[in-house]
């Protein structure tokens, strides 16, 4: 199905299933512990051995020798393969560092060996016996030094008007520096795979991946084999947040072990290994300059940022939103990639905007204060309905102002104390803050197969459900399109034997894959109509209705199957700018003596197209708000500048938000349908929730205390020496 123009009125505008709250159809398996995750597939193949990884103890250099003799002769060990034993493996498009093979070390805990044994304990113990000799190269892991080098250089990615002239003539200006630290996905399920490549022919991979087809293609490139020889399964995924977009060392080492020993091998990355072995969100350094007239209208936005990456990588572009979010006639945007020898920086939930809005939305708060304006009104005044960098391109839908007004109204924003440090309750300073949220929307081609069998419809696609609710919203889409109750739809996901979908990432999954399932169901409807010899029938209440001719779907005894994809036309990006918007409001309490910040209340208002299932969408948004709270107050990967690795590489040292950190959360969806986006008029929402949250908290902490913290996380040590006297 080609989607070459905006959707007109269609069945989703009178939907009875799509858009309605429906409990997760995979929920019963998850609450009973019976949903099988990658490392739990004892049933899929007999004789599984246990693999355990060994990582490099240096950040950069060369491996001179690996002594694995003791490991090889350790009890239960069936084999050891070191990186010196094989030629360098291939590197797929989106991977930066080599996953295995050869003597070059590109980052700390890059995989250098795999031990395969009969039990996990034997493999782990033997892995500790491996001794490695390195030649160590000098490293550079100092982002601040990189920023100093690159600031003011390079070609802007966006340059509109005359920024310098606008600053010279502006009534009010702001020029501030902001820092965001590196962050890690810290999904609860470690990267894990079982691989059977015993005979060197067919490779079967049971893994935990957001992107089945990318995983398959990456395996093919890595091992230099035909993709047709690889099958990848990942029906349940214990969280990803971008960390499982890519093929990683778990599957590669398990495949090598399996090939070497002629047996299936299971391997999970140990938690303390994950943070340095896999990818993370890069730290950013950001300089933001804003200029405005006395009326509060922005006249110029100048955003310069830097992030780190291994050579050839993408870093974290914190300027992602700046070309589009606020109106201003003059604009300059530039992002510097600083090549450093830390582990591989890559995508994490809302890559770009998550870090960018942490800074920009503090800057907007500071600017509003300078202008003596309400920060909500300041943002409303600087709204735009067109791409401010190219005013001929309108937003497909943009209801940011409604988000701000609705949020302010519901939160009771007007009643807040506006004098920083002006409200105290007992031992706590109370503050309120808000921030805008922006996250681009993107679609990817997505396919599915729909099969009618005994009055039931089965959907098969390689789409994944990483906790986002894909199973449920795809079932809702099929139920709506086929006129069936939810109980008569079965959804099968995460298998490369099935049609290629968008996969899950970049908040493109829900909108793209539901459109793909719609396309497959429309193709099935056409087959059914042809089979029944009717034209243009309606599908409702389990029946095919063509005039007086009513045929129950259950009366069709022959199994019918149709496969199709949704292909998104160029009009979406050529004629429109698609994005999602939101507004966050929070109340914090900051301890008068210690500077500890506690979040007391959170509200998000979201404008992200049709909400396909308000239960799962809300869970995505509150989850984003939780991650944003961690980003505001505690999450920070600490860099060991001498050795070039993240020192706090486990869940004790890297502090994500826990139950005690999270208050009552309210989420409002404006349910603004967007016909440009998909036939279902839906856009992504999974990443919008994390965008802007941290800045809203930092702004609230400022309102509480008068201490402006521009470097995340907003920990007590950054406040305590400036707190108001008590």
């Amino acid at each position, binding site marked *: 199905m080609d989607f070459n123009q905006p959707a007109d009125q269609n069945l989703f505008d009178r939907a009875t299933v799509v858009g309605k709250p429906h*409990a997760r159809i995979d*929920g*019963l*398996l*998850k*609450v*009973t*512990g*019976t*949903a*099988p*995750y990658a490392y739990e597939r004892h049933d899929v193949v007999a004789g599984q051995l246990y693999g355990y990884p060994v990582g490099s*103890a*240096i950040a950069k*250099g060369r491996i*001179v020798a690996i002594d694995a003799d003791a490991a090889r002769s350790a*009890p239960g060990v069936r084999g050891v393969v070191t990186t010196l034993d094989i030629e360098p493996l291939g590197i797929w498009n989106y991977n930066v560092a080599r996953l295995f093979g050869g003597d070059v070390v590109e980052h700390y805990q890059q995989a250098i060996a795999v031990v395969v044994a009969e*039990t*996990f*304990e*034997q493999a782990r*113990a033997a*892995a*500790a*016996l*491996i001794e490695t*000799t*390195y*030649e*160590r*190269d*000098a490293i550079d892991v100092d982002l601040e030094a990189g920023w100093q080098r690159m600031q003011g250089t390079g070609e802007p990615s966006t340059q509109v008007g005359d920024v310098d002239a606008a600053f010279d003539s502006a009534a009010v200006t702001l020029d501030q520096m902001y820092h965001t630290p590196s962050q890690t996905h810290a*999904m*609860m*399920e*470690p990267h894990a795979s079982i691989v059977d490549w015993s005979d060197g022919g067919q490779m079967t991979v049971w893994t935990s991946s957001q992107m089945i087809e990318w995983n398959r293609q990456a395996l093919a490139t890595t091992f230099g084999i035909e993709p047709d020889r690889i099958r990848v399964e990942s029906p*349940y995924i*214990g*969280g*990803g947040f971008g960390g499982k977009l890519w093929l990683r060392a778990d599957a590669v080492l398990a495949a090598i072990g399996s090939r070497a020993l002629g047996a299936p091998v299971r391997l999970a990355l*140990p*938690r303390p290994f994950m943070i340095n072995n896999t990818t993370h969100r890069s730290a950013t350094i950001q300089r933001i300059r804003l200029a405005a007239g006395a009326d509060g209208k922005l006249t110029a936005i100048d955003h310069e940022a830097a992030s780190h990456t291994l050579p050839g990588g993408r870093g974290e572009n914190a300027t992602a939103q700046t070309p589009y979010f606020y109106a201003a006639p003059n604009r300059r945007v530039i992002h510097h990639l600083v090549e450093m020898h830390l582990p591989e920086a890559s995508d994490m939930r809302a890559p770009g905007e998550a870090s960018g809005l942490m800074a920009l939305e503090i800057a907007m708060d500071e600017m509003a204060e300078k202008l003596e304006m309400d920060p909500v009104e300041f943002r409303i005044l600087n709204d735009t309905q067109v791409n401010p960098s190219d005013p001929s391109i309108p937003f497909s839908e943009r209801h940011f102002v409604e988000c701000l007004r609705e949020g302010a109204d519901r939160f009771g924003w007007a009643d807040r104390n506006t004098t920083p440090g002006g409200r105290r309750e007992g031992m706590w300073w109370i503050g309120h803050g808000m921030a805008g949220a922006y996250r681009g929307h993107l679609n990817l081609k997505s396919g599915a197969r729909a099969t009618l069998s005994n009055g039931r419809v089965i959907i098969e696609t390689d789409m994944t459900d*990483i*906790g986002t*609710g894909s199973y449920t919203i795809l079932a809702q889409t099929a139920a709506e399109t086929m006129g069936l109750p939810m109980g008569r739809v079965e959804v099968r996901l995460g298998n490369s034997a099935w049609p290629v979908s968008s996969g899950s990432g970049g908040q493109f999954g829900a909108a793209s894959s539901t459109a793909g399932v719609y396309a497959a169901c429309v193709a099935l409807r056409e087959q059914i109509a042809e089979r029944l010899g009717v034209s243009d029938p309606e599908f409702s209440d389990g029946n095919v209705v063509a005039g007086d001719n009513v045929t129950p779907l259950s009366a069709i005894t022959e199994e019918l199957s149709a496969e199709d994809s949704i292909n998104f036309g160029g009009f979406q990006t050529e004629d429109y700018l698609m994005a999602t918007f939101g507004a966050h409001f929070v109340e914090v309490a900051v301890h008068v003596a210690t500077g500890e910040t506690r979040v007391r209340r959170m509200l998000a208002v979201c404008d992200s197209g049709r909400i396909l299932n308000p239960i*799962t969408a809300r*869970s*995505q948004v*509150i*989850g984003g*708000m*939780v991650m944003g709270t961690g980003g505001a107050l505690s999450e920070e990967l600490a860099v060991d500048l001498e*050795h070039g690795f993240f020192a706090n590489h*486990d*869940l004790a040292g890297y502090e*994500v*938000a*826990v*139950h005690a950190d*999270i208050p009552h959360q309210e989420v409002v969806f404006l349910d603004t349908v967007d016909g440009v986006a998909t036939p279902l008029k839906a856009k992504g929402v999974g990443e919008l929730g994390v965008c802007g949250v941290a800045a809203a908290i930092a702004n609230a902490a400022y309102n509480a205390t008068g201490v402006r913290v521009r470097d995340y996380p907003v920990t007590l040590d950054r406040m305590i020496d400036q707190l108001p006297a008590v």
Partner: protein
Amino acid sequence: MSPPIRFEMRRRTFLVGTASAVVAANIPWRANAQPTSLAGPERSTFTLVVNGEPRELAVDNRTTLLDALREHLQLTGTKKGCDHGQCGACTVNVNGERINSCLSLAVMHQGDEVTTIEGLGTPQQLDPMQQAFFDHDGFQCGYCTPGQICSAKAVLEEIRDNVPSHVTQDLTARIEATDEEIRERMSGNICRCGAYANILEAIHQAAGEPT
């Protein structure tokens, strides 16, 4: 009570920071992993009573209770999130108390009564806490969920038993299942999907059910 474990910290060579290491480019440099040595019998045979059923195990002494459940009994409902007692995904109930099963060697549990998520209910017949999590969408990816549910059941029992927590203000009064008490007691169970607000609602629902 288990005897205190004596151990000696051995710093891995690469953690011994010296200024010379910075300029030591291209000098052969060695990282020695900590050697392991095994003394005494390496395997033990013992019985766990898992979800009411005696299960005999013969496993490597290094096997954690978590791996005994997941790898040997193939009860994979209990999850391994960190294997270091930092995330709570492996929470099970042993002799009436919740523990992180990754921090406990299986061999220490001869005769112990272990209840896992599989012992609480099935998709066809949910425990009230499982039902409450389902009703309130108290999960997303589902990986921390069994641990959250096992913990949540124990939290309500601890409150009913008047066991104080860090946030209990009055040690002489009856402890109530307040938001603050539940959040505090559940804080050893990380949910990176961030379903905390929904989990809180679920626990309140289950707290209202007759026990």
